[in-house]
């Protein structure tokens, strides 16, 4: 090996690790209302800076300000608040259920609720999401029954997926929610393919792809951008930058680029960053992108800047790789607290109503949980028949699977 070191490998490291004091002083908190709202037929390079700035609507007092502050009606704001509260309440119950051994695994969206709840609110019926495992907010917002979610998590007799999938790997065509894959990134190009199909078919439906900051490094991120760019697919490509990919900080996937959104510019795809903890901003940007797609201008890339406040999954313990207080110090605040503040500022909500809503939601979640548990949990009670393992591998059971099922004696 060389003795006079000439080159050396640069390995990016996060600002702080367990034991350090979180320091977000380098993070420039965006000023609400400052980023312009371009026309939807804009060219990517003409809004180059949108890939570096952060669009924010709700200011520190909860007021909606600036050019992106329009379109969110009173009832929509309140529904958004309720949806996010539901997701959080649901998450905390299911986390507990996993700890109690009622299922094998769980993943929360803690701190990121605005991203999927606000986004879904901007879609139309028939549009299709290709989500990752952290977009349960899409389902809640679209009205998918919480009971079915729980049945899936418990792999019980009423599990819509018959116990085949890991908990939280939902699927609902009806609710515009594509079957979640355990393999990162694959769904990003599938979303583009779905959108291309919509275009080929002369339809008016759009697709939304979802990917995490860490998973942008996967190759199918590239496939998606290449195909979306070439075929001007009517889709929205969402990057949820929640700062962490399990133990790995976002700098490893981002490298020398200033932002993830800037990756879209090299494909001529308009790319915007949005404060992912600002329900209003996410909603407004998603509406803009959806309109763009509907008018035939093709894909938009959105980077949602947020923070994964919980562990990666129930198999993870973040205290091994990041300071415990980092989540609390995250400069963009909590999405529920911020929308709540906005609704109060808007005069349509109050502390009392909030408390009451919280109680209602919690008890509804608990009631639903009890109902779900009647259908069984992973290790207790009824579940799908093991015969079912052999079903739907193919449309029709082929002879070799018939034989194997016989041999299995089930």
């Amino acid at each position: 090996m060389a003795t006079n070191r000439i080159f050396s490998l640069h390995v990016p490291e996060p600002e702080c690790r367990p034991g350090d004091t979180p320091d977000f002083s380098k993070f420039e908190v965006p000023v609400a209302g400052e980023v312009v709202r371009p026309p939807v037929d804009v060219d990517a390079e003409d809004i180059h800076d949108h890939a570096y700035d952060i669009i924010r609507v709700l200011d520190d007092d909860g007021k909606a300000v600036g050019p992106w502050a329009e379109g969110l009606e009173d009832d929509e704001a309140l529904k958004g608040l309720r949806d996010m509260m539901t997701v959080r309440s649901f998450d905390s119950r299911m986390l507990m259920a996993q700890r109690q051994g009622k299922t094998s695994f769980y993943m929360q969206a803690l701190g990121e609720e605005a991203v999927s709840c606000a986004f879904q609110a901007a879609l139309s019926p028939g549009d299709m999401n290709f989500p990752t495992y952290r977009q349960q907010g899409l389902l809640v917002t679209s009205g998918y029954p919480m009971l079915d979610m729980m049945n899936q998590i418990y792999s019980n007799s009423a599990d819509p997926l018959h116990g085949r999938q890991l908990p939280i790997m939902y699927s609902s065509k009806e609710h515009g929610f594509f079957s979640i894959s355990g393999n990162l990134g694959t769904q990003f190009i599938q979303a583009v393919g779905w959108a291309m199909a919509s275009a080929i078919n002369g339809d008016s439906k759009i697709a939304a792809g979802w990917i995490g900051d860490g998973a942008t490094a996967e190759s199918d991120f590239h496939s998606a951008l290449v195909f979306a760019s070439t075929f001007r697919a009517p889709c929205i490509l969402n990057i949820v930058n929640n700062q962490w990919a399990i133990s790995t900080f976002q700098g490893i996937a981002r490298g020398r680029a200033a932002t993830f959104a800037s990756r879209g510019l090299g494909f001529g795809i308009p790319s915007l960053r949005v404060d992912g903890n600002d329900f209003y901003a996410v909603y407004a940007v998603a509406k803009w992108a959806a309109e763009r797609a509907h008018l035939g201008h093709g894909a938009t890339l959105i980077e949602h800047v947020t923070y994964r406040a919980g562990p990666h999954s129930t198999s993870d313990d973040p205290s091994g790789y990041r300071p415990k207080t980092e989540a609390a110090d995250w400069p963009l605040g909590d999405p529920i607290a911020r929308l709540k503040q906005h609704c109060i500022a808007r005069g349509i909500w109050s502390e009392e109503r909030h408390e009451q809503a919280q109680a209602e939601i919690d008890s509804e979640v608990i009631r639903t949980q009890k109902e779900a548990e009647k259908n069984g949990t992973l290790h207790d009670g009824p579940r799908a028949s093991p015969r079912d393992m052999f079903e739907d591998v193919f449309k029709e059971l082929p002879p070799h699977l018939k034989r194997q099922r016989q041999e299995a004696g089930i």
Partner: protein
Amino acid sequence: MARMTMIEAIRDAQDVAMSRDEKVVVFGQDVGYFGGVFRCTKGLQEKYGLQRCFDTPINESGIVGAAVGMGAYGLRPCVEIQFADYMYPAFDQIVSEAARLRHRSNKDFTAPLTIRMPTGGGIYGGQTHSQSPEALFAHVSGLKTMIPSNPYDAKGMLIAAIEDDDPVVFLEPKRLYNGPFDGYHEKAVTPWSKHELGEVPEGHYTVPVGKAAIRRPGEAVTILAYGTMVHVALAAAEETGIDAEVVDLRSIVPLDMETIEASVRKTGRCVVVHEATLTAGFGAELVALISQHCFWHLQAPPIRVTGYDTPYPHAHEWEYFPGPVRVGAALKTVMEAS
């Protein structure tokens, strides 16, 4: 009826499928304006327009991934991978996505794709234009894998594949595109126009999925083969004068065990032939099935004649290729064993 090459038959199958169902779309590298490097999609763009037959960027994962999304939407994509050797970048989308989608979503979403790819050697294509990866697909639950050996089957099987609601990997033995190659590369190839299986009906028909065909009935020994090796097996039977029954599997998943078992029980001897490398090739599965299910009928150890466990060579193609001489030797061995 018309006499067609296998290329024309494959093109015709796509034409028929596209004309009957506007959900059928065809895409891949160079398949649009140019009609594919082997010309298997010639004229389809002109006939069906840019929206239904088009060139894609060179990204196999993108091609299959987009097809999965389109399938989920409700289209029926038939995509081309330029050579089977280039399918590896798409392997994740094939294995983890297309093959599992129906099952994992409890049929909420399906992936009714056909993934066409030229396979096999015999064209001096070296290690990256000659591979036979069928065993890799066969090991993956949820995929169907077909390999035609002649124009008639190619058309009927490809139409069946496109109409099938499950993902199908459709491997086209490129050495057979223009004629029934029997392994004698020094001889001029007989064109399909001189072969009865080059007789291809017009319009729609299908060859049932998962049904083997007996290309030569025989009593002495069973040869299990598919693709190019069917013709090699026939030549070997001819040359050795051994009364071999040549079974053309046509589809390896699902597999026609009924026909295989009946033949091996009858003959008591078996030679399995494929171009792919030996170890963990599909021949292993065939021998294993026979050994399990026809054990008491076997009069000799089954033999595999396959490519060697090396990268596919360039200069030494004909030493590598399992031609009639090697198959003939195996026939003799299996007949002599006792």
